[in-house]
């Protein structure tokens, strides 16, 4: 799969290993996948600073990356991990993304990013509109607005502790760390 000394320098691979939950092999695998999305944009060697500067537009990522293609939240995930907030990801952004979703990442960091993903309007809270958004994306079959409203009310009822009608990070974390299947569903194998 390519001589690792060609794609990255030793120092770079070391840095990536220290900053993500990946091994060398996995980092190179991620690079291969990244390159496959836009081989015209992404060079084989990334020695200078291409890994932080070259960005693949969000449309290409959501269409061509098989791990995200069927995910209802793919656009939002890209937005959260991008530097420009619009979803265009550099190699380092995608490495970060996949590292958070890997099996070795601890629960806390997954919860942190899960909150960011579900907070569509970036107002530090998951409010009824965010939940509505999530439900619409989650289901290809349409739920009626009344059903959606019901579900939103039930979710807030279950999770809201301080009574402000929306979920803060603490409340969200309190609910999600107690979900038995969070770790197994919030996981992308690379």
């Amino acid at each position, binding site marked *: 799969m390519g001589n690792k000394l060609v794609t990255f320098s030793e120092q770079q691979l070391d840095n990536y290993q220290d900053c*993500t939950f990946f091994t060398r092999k996995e980092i190179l695998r991620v690079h291969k996948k990244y390159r496959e999305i836009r081989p015209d944009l992404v060079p084989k060697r990334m020695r200078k600073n291409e890994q932080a500067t070259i960005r693949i537009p969000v449309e290409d990522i959501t269409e061509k990356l098989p791990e995200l293609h069927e995910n209802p939240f793919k656009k939002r995930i890209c937005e*959260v991990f991008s530097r420009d907030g619009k979803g265009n990801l550099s190699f380092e952004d995608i490495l970060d993304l996949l590292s958070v979703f890997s099996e070795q990442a601890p629960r*806390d960091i997954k919860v942190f990013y899960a909150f960011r993903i579900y907070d569509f309007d970036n107002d530090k809270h998951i409010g009824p509109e965010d939940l509505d958004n999530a439900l619409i994306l989650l289901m*290809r079959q349409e739920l009626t607005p009344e*059903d959606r409203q019901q579900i939103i009310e039930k979710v807030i009822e279950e999770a809201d502790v301080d009574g402000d009608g929306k979920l803060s*990070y*603490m409340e969200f974390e309190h609910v999600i760390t107690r979900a038995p*299947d*969070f770790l197994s*569903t919030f996981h992308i194998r690379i």
Partner: protein
Amino acid sequence: MSRYVNEEPIPMFEINHPEPGPSRHSHYDHASGDSPRPTMVVSGHRKFNTIYAGPQDNFDNHADKIVAKMEQHRALMEDTPISEQLRKEALRELPQCLTMKRCVKKKLSKSISRKSQRNPIGFWKRLKYRLSIKVAKTRHNFKHFNYFELWHGTLKDIEGHFGSGYASYFKFLRWLFVMNLLVSLMAFSLITVPQIIYDSSGTNGTVRNTRHFQLQNIFIGDGFFKETVLYYGHYTHNTIALVPYLSFYMPAAYFSVTVILYLLSFFILGVSVAQSYRRSFIETEGGLQNIYANKVFCGWDYAIATEEAAELKSSAIYHELKELLSESYETEWDRSCFYKFWTCTIQAVVNILILVVLVGVAWACWSLLEQFSFKGDGSVLVTTVAVNIIMMVFPIIFNYISKCRGKHPESEFDISKHTLQIIYNQALFWVGFLYSPILPALVTVKMFIIWYIREGCVRNFCKPPRRTWRAAQTQTFFMMLIFVTLVLIVAGHGYTLKSISPSDCGTFRNYERMYQMVTRGVANLEDDHLVWKIVIYITKPGAIALIMIEQAFAQKEKVKMLRDMLVWMSKDKKFLNQMYTKVTRGDVIGVRDNRFMDPSHILPYEVHGYSTEDVDSN
């Protein structure tokens, strides 16, 4: 998960974004025309969560701030391998983008090398550090023994096509396969290989195989196989000279290798079960009542990669949510006493029926074994065939019964059934290993074949599941099942080692009881030695059981107390919130102290009485 357990309690982790635009840390390439406004920036790891207020910072500045915060913790800033490990962990868990993390790492190492230049470490210390780095690395590699790469492609493919539910079966199979492979390698190399060498050396005492191979021997395993390394009976009781001047005492090897491998399996399984239980039951207790939140936030399986699986998953979540909604609409009549009574009796009757059937089957197997197993000819197969027929037929019957109860059996890949099959396979392995050191190798090969058969079966004949599979808790259940199986089998073998006298063939033929291999052969301890009295006294099962039960109760109390504290704290916050708004609005209302202290009472003020503008603590 916190490695910093002894430090201050984990502070609240608040997220504040500079503005809705850039979604990560402060914008690297400045948006022009933005007037600097006070912003608050997340600085990462929980331990370093200060909130920095000030004008919009640039990239480097932000990194400096994070480094400054990290430098305050002495444990991180030393030049030792442990410190380096801690730094790496802190870096990985920093919720910043990768570019920021690399910047922080560079600054950190500069700062550390500056510090160490000021106090250089001596030669011996450096050597010690290098050694401990190597040790830590090997320990790390051992802990994360990367068998994850085995069959990785297949697993990913199945996850993508069918979801994490089916994949959990394959992950379990792979884990057991690796464990069995290691056991079989050790048993083969340490017991069987010396025996083979001994046999081929032709010294006096070796038994040559006088029987000829016939095809039917494969089915029963007698005849030719009786005098091969397949069975315990063939192993010698002599000392073998593998290499000149190095003797190899076969009974000791046999005993110690088998016992150690059993204990190792026991230990590994025990640890896995405990971790699994903690993760899926203890840490999540109280979370099972958040059904809607769990469904919305954790409903989607991120591993899905095909259109078909995504459609099915989405419709599964849809139907499950609709079901939940309709259950909450149910009328009073459905919950009437009569209905509940009826369902209860039906369940009780069915359970008793199943229990009766199971007891009947067990009795039938036992009597078949008694009648047919000792004749030494083909009739020994009768029990085997009967057991297999039972295992094929009865699940269908039970499925039919459960259908009457209103359940819907899956027509897709039945994860439970197949997992139970591999657990049964594993139980056979453990029962037979003591008497046949080659059995592990055979079972490992069998599991290898099972993998490919199941994979083909799933790909070609199964469709993705229509309902969500509760992976975490069922995995824990299966692990517990397999652990209990191992415990029972080890207990059975323990009884054999202690009380059954070995037969006239085989490696323990000179001992009255197998455990005497250790006591007499190695430690020269007679039966009524003082050591035994002490050991027996300490290891009385009752004493150990009492201690463990007491421990378990103590832990449970502790967990309950901590949980109550959490509830207290959140109710306090709610209460204080409302008090604050009340006071700032001008009304001061007296508080009743007894309510304030008791978390199980509801708060003095109903939340719904206030509009949301009042309860704004920002």
